[in-house]
């Protein structure tokens, strides 16, 4: 392995290490106390186990963070008018009138965690030379989580917004980042004489329209398949890979999205166009307006595409009940019994620039590998009363261009197609709301990645590897995660999750042979979270 390829390997491994550190934190999860204040209602109006939405919450979100009908009659604080409604008749000779909420719609959230890890947690140190002081994983650990601010609402004329930001993560203020930040134009279909709610547009930064939101998951840990990147390094093992696609489906997208339909019944679709952000770097200094304000993170003019379609069949026999936002139960409204079937497709293209030489073999140049990729998947979601079972399957495919060096050349001179870098997998989860304040969860996550196993095996004695403690034993990672969640109040939740982790193994850096047999480092996570 030459120096350049080692640097590449090292950078890739570092990137994955960083990604794992970040992923080890529970994902962001936002419920909206701002709406509770605005409407004078409990979190449970929209959430069954926050932030998991019930059918009414889905309808509220679909309507642009409004009650689906007669919204104004539910407002406990009147909005501030930004122009009398009658001004609309004067448009375009006046600014079109809108409104802002009468109460500043801000919510805050904080969570804290405790972790207990099984006895073989420090096995990764086996690869260190004798006498070396290695990293240490404590048996138990208390850890601060997120402190987040979020604001959302509507401006009265079918325009809604959402902004959330993690002010601090794991106790460090510098780790926070913008989650979603977008403006959404709801029901544009009314201008085009299309069926109601059949066309919306949102612009800004947003989580893709995944079958189940990773940013707002109710689980302590996110679903593995949505966190899976596709990074395959060249390390001399077959199959050789040269993909550096850091994109995970959970990543926020910057762009625009057209959508329509409803999440609580019938069809729903979305089509998004956004920056490819797989290996983007900020330009420095910014060279395009707005001056010095915003740099550009995309290193390509290529725009990624994402599309989703789902159809939900509400299964109540009574047509009146079936078509309402919530079903009419004998002792009160409840979520529908339903079956939803969906599919999604992501298409993008990564860009990897390399220092190389022209065909003369000596003149330096930059060679660019453009590797198209796609993610395709399907999902199913079935709900019966308080029992919800659902799952997702994803298949990923990245074009794989291997660098080639012409005979006698001083560097790489081009690329040659090779076997695609792929991964697949998904998850299945069952949630049972045994009591209105207690939910039992059972999850199974699986990721089968052609890159996962080879990425952390290094057997070149001249290039010592980084720690390989998290190296999966095989190309398939299974994780079982039973859990229980308790609402102490509608805005305070205690969660417990036991992660039966994927099998791991430690390799001898000199031989590439296993130092240990496969083992698991299981973890018990306890979380406390409150929003206000």
């Amino acid at each position, binding site marked *: 392995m030459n120096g350049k390829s080692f640097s590449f390997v090292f950078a890739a491994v570092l990137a994955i290490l960083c990604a794992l550190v970040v992923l080890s934190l529970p994902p962001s999860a936002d419920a909206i106390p701002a709406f509770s204040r605005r409407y004078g209602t409990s979190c449970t*109006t929209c959430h069954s186990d926050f932030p998991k939405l019930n059918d009414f919450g889905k309808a509220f979100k679909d309507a642009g963070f409004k*009650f689906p009908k007669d919204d104004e*009659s539910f407002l406990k604080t009147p909005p501030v008018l930004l122009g009398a409604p009658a001004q609309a008749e004067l448009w375009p000779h006046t600014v079109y009138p809108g409104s802002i909420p009468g109460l500043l719609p801000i919510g805050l959230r904080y969570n804290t965690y405790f972790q207990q890890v099984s006895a073989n947690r420090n096995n990764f140190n086996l690869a260190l030379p004798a006498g070396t002081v290695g990293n240490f994983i404590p048996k138990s650990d208390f850890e601060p989580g997120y402190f987040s601010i979020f604001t959302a609402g509507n401006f009265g004329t079918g325009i809604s917004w959402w902004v959330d930001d993690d002010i601090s993560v794991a106790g460090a203020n510098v780790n926070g980042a913008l989650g979603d930040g977008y403006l959404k134009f709801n029901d544009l279909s009314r201008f085009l004489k299309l069926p109601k709610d059949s066309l919306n547009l949102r612009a800004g930064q947003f989580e893709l329209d995944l079958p189940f939101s990773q940013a707002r998951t109710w689980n302590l840990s996110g679903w593995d398949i949505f966190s899976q990147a596709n990074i395959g390094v060249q390390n001399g093992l077959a199959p050789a890979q040269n993909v550096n696609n850091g994109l995970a489906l959970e990543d926020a997208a910057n762009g625009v999205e057209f959508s329509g339909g409803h999440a609580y019944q019938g069809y729903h679709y979305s089509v998004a166009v956004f920056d490819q952000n797989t290996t983007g770097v900020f330009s420095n200094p910014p060279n395009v307006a707005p001056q010095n304000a915003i740099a550009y993170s995309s290193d390509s003019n290529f725009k990624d595409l994402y599309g989703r379609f789902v159809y939900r069949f509400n299964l109540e026999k009574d047509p009146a009940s079936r078509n*309402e936002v919530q079903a009419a139960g004998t*002792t*009160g*409204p409840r979520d529908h019994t339903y079956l939803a079937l969906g599919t999604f497709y992501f298409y993008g293209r990564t860009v990897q620039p390399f220092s190389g030489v022209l065909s003369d073999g000596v003149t330096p140049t930059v060679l660019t590998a453009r590797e198209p990729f796609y993610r395709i998947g399907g999902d199913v979601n079935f709900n019966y009363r308080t029992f919800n079972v659902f799952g997702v399957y994803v298949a990923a495919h990245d074009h794989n261009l291997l660098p080639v060096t012409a005979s006698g050349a001083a560097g790489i001179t081009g690329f040659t197609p090779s076997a695609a870098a792929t991964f697949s997998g998904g998850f299945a989860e069952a949630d049972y709301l045994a009591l209105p304040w207690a939910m039992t969860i059972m999850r199974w996550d699986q990721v089968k990645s052609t890159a996962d196993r080879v990425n952390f095996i290094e057997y070149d004695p001249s290039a010592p590897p980084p720690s390989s403690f998290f190296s999966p034993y095989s190309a398939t990672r299974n994780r079982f995660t039973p859990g229980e969640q308790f609402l102490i109040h509608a805005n305070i939740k205690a969660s417990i999750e036991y992660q039966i982790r994927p099998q791991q193994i430690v390799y001898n850096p000199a031989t590439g042979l296993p130092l240990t047999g496969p083992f698991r480092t299981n973890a018990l996570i306890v979380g406390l979270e409150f929003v206000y």
Partner: protein
Amino acid sequence: MKKIALVTIFMTALATVAFAGTIHGKVSGVSGESVVYVEGVAGKTFPAPTQHITVDQKGLMFVPHITAVAQGTTVEFLNSDSVAHNVFWPSISGNKKLGHNLGTWPQGQRKSFKFDDPGIVPLLCNVHPEMSGYVIVSPTPYFAVTDKSGDFKIDNVPDGAYTVTAWHEGAKNKSNPVKVAGDTTADFTLSK
């Protein structure tokens, strides 16, 4: 004969006026509306009122928040909201056996319930847990809802000795013996 009848009617009316008193007073120690009612009189029953009373669900609230009715009154629960609601009460005066769930009904429709058991009925909605209302079922037709300053007046109470109870949301009930003779004052001081 006509004279006798007229005299009888006159005397009866006079007796009624003379022996029907008024209880008035003030409920203090709490703020907002309270309910004051005369407890049941041994050996005496009252006919069930024929007039129905309506409690609305509007803007995610029970309207009115407090409703006082006489035992045997039928209350109609209306849903004026465009969202689904439910009405149930887990108990009446703490007696869980008297709890009841009326189910679900859409906007503009109503469901009725005849309250044959006296007591405090806490109204709840199982979709919107913040919603709260009360039906106070008085064992006698002698009851009143105070104004916001706590003042109340119960008319047409026959003279006699009674137990009068004052109820306020979140406060401890207070029952006082009251001897009604004409215009009678009965004040209550409640505490939480």
